[in-house]
């Protein structure tokens, strides 16, 4: 019998398609992946430990730097946890502004995913189309909070500022344009024969395995499980909004593409509703002063639905203004577990497609 020698190859941490600093050791039989070991931790900054020595308010900027592609969601998850811990109520207007920002950030995050995922599969132009629209969202964020990547846009108990004058109109204009552009992306990819060939039945993972590995977000929803914290455990003002949860039961890379594309449109729909329903007057901060006084030995877990899945924060207080323990449950870290079983038996070209479809951010998984 013929036997080929297996080759061990090192993909990353410096590699064009590992999306940051993921290192992937692959054992290859020709082009086929026999075994794989993801190696993480190249971006570890010890944020959880660091948080134990900071006041609650000073931890917020760290959450920007974990999942830097959707820093707004990171902010919201952490602040939501602190507010739950201390029993602070957020004024309605502030909650609306938060949801607007988070949903816009979800679109921006999905655009980055679409661009890099398509780039990995070889469609280069869509990368720049995606960035063109993401740029407009970043401009909106810049107009609101001054930052384009690490926003730190919310405060404990609310938001620091109202939407600047003219922002609403600009946002409405963008949403209108985005619906158009979204159709363009679909025209380029959705029915493209090569795109179908590259994504159908690639990276298959059914609901049972997704749940066993605690995979959440679009990957889980593309396996037919309609799990979305915005509907299941509504936070902020999501219970006042009308939206659907896109679900697909293809379980493969293409299904995840369909789900994320549909989610972008849902987010547009939500932002439109928010802009309409948002009260024009009202307080922005629910709390005066800056001292947190959580009860002693209180433990809480608060999670939101981020673009990549469940973004949870677990806090233990010891009665001081610093957390005794601050644990982040980040979706990239959990979803990364699905990588090895997904690439098993696939080709090298599938590996990059699967890394793309899991939509991992290494800052998020390494913390």
């Amino acid at each position, binding site marked *: 019998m013929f036997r080929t020698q297996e080759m061990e190859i090192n993909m990353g941490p410096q*590699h064009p398609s590992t999306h940051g600093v993921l290192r992937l050791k692959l054992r290859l039989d020709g082009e086929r992946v026999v075994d794989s070991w993801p190696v993480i931790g190249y971006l570890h900054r010890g944020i959880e430990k660091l948080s134990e020595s900071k006041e609650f308010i000073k931890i917020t900027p760290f959450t920007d730097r974990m999942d830097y592609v959707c820093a707004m969601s990171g902010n919201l998850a952490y602040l939501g946890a602190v507010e739950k811990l201390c029993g602070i109520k957020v004024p309605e207007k502030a909650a609306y502004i938060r949801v607007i920002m988070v949903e816009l950030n979800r679109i921006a995050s999905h655009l980055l995913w679409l661009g890099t995922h398509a780039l990995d599969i*070889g469609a*280069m132009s869509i990368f720049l189309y995606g960035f063109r629209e993401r740029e407009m969202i970043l401009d909106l964020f810049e107009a609101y909070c001054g930052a384009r990547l690490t926003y730190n846009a919310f405060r404990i108990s609310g938001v620091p500022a109202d939407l600047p004058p003219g922002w609403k109109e600009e946002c409405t204009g963008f949403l209108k344009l985005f619906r158009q552009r979204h159709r363009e992306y679909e025209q380029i990819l959705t029915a493209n024969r090569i795109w179908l060939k590259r994504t159908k039945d690639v990276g298959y993972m059914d609901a049972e395995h997704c749940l066993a590995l605690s995979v959440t977000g679009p990957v889980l929803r593309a396996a037919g499980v309609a799990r979305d914290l915005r509907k299941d455990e509504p936070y902020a003002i999501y219970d006042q909004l009308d939206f659907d949860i896109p679900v697909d039961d293809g379980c493969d890379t293409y299904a995840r593409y369909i789900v994320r594309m549909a989610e972008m449109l849902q987010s547009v729909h939500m932002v439109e509703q928010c802009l309409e329903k948002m009260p024009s007057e009202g307080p922005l901060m629910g709390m005066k002063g800056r001292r947190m006084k959580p009860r002693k030995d209180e433990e809480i877990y608060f999670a939101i639905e981020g673009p990549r899945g469940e973004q949870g924060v677990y806090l233990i207080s010891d009665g001081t203004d610093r957390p005794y323990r601050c644990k982040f449950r980040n979706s990239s870290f959990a979803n990364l577990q699905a990588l090895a079983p997904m690439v098993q038996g696939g080709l090298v070209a599938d590996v990059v497609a699967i890394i793309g479809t899991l939509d991992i951010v290494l800052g998020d998984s390494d913390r």
Partner: protein
Amino acid sequence: MDAAMLKEIGEIVVRMLIIFTAVFTGVGYMTLVERRVSAWMQDRLGPNRVGPQGLLQPLADGLKHLMKEDVTPPGAHRMVFILAPIMVLIPAVLSFAVIPIAGDAINLQDLGLPWDWQIKPFIADVSVGLLILLGLASLEVYGVVLAGWSSGSKYPAMGALRSTAQMISYELALGLAILPVVLTTGSLRLQTIAEAQAGTWFGFVPHWNVFIHPFGFLFLLISIFAENKRLPFDLPEAEPELVAGYHTEYSAMKFVMFYMTEYSAMIANAALMVTLFFGGWQVPGLVLPQPWMFLVQAGAFAAKTFFFLFLFVWVRWTLPRFRYDQLMNLGWKVLLELAFINLLVVAMLVAAGVM
């Protein structure tokens, strides 16, 4: 050295000067065209700083690469590592020697120059020009596989394996797609094939092979995309997977040589397609006095070639990439069979005297 010999040498030198100057300028400016066109498609500007509209960019790039450090990685096989880029570049450039760029020879005196030299529209008049072209195309594989192997690194080795398999597979389909043209024309000489496409049907449809062999042209187009390693078949250098494929470890001028190879092979293949299927230099219904005829025909040839080059660029920035096994399936299980059936049908029609 007598005058006749001097004249012959002079003629050859002028021919070579014309064609190779055109080719190397074309290669340089193709890089600019690719970058500007892709920028235009992607809603950005592209290189427009060096010279008007970035027209001096290729020169600046060349100069930059000349001054870069030429790194030979420690694991490399030195000798082969240096030879490999030369081995890919030479066959790619040589293939221009047999491609005719116009109909009749031109006398330099017609252009107002003092020498009575007849400049033929090709460098070498070879009766088996098509075979030479195919042979040179397959020689390119050696340079690629040696480049990948001698780099002493895993990604280039994988890229080299992929490209070898790909080029060899698609060469079969490429040859089979061309053969129907040879059958109906009855010659392997490219000038004869181009001349055979003179005239029109009904006065307005040019008598080009593409209308006689539409399937042959389609198969040739697909195989040329694969042969050139252009997207959607650019697996050997698929940068998200293999970094840069077989030329990952190359730097400075050696790297430039791979780029020149890519673009000159692209131009050669576009010129081949034009010669075989689009009448070569033919401009239907045009008759002009000699110096103008030559220039217009050469211009028409360049324009037709440029159309295909633009097509290459256009496709590259639009489509996603095939996977390696899908590419092999397409080559062996679909394209080869279809090209073969096409050849059989044409052969039967020729034997029956219909074509």
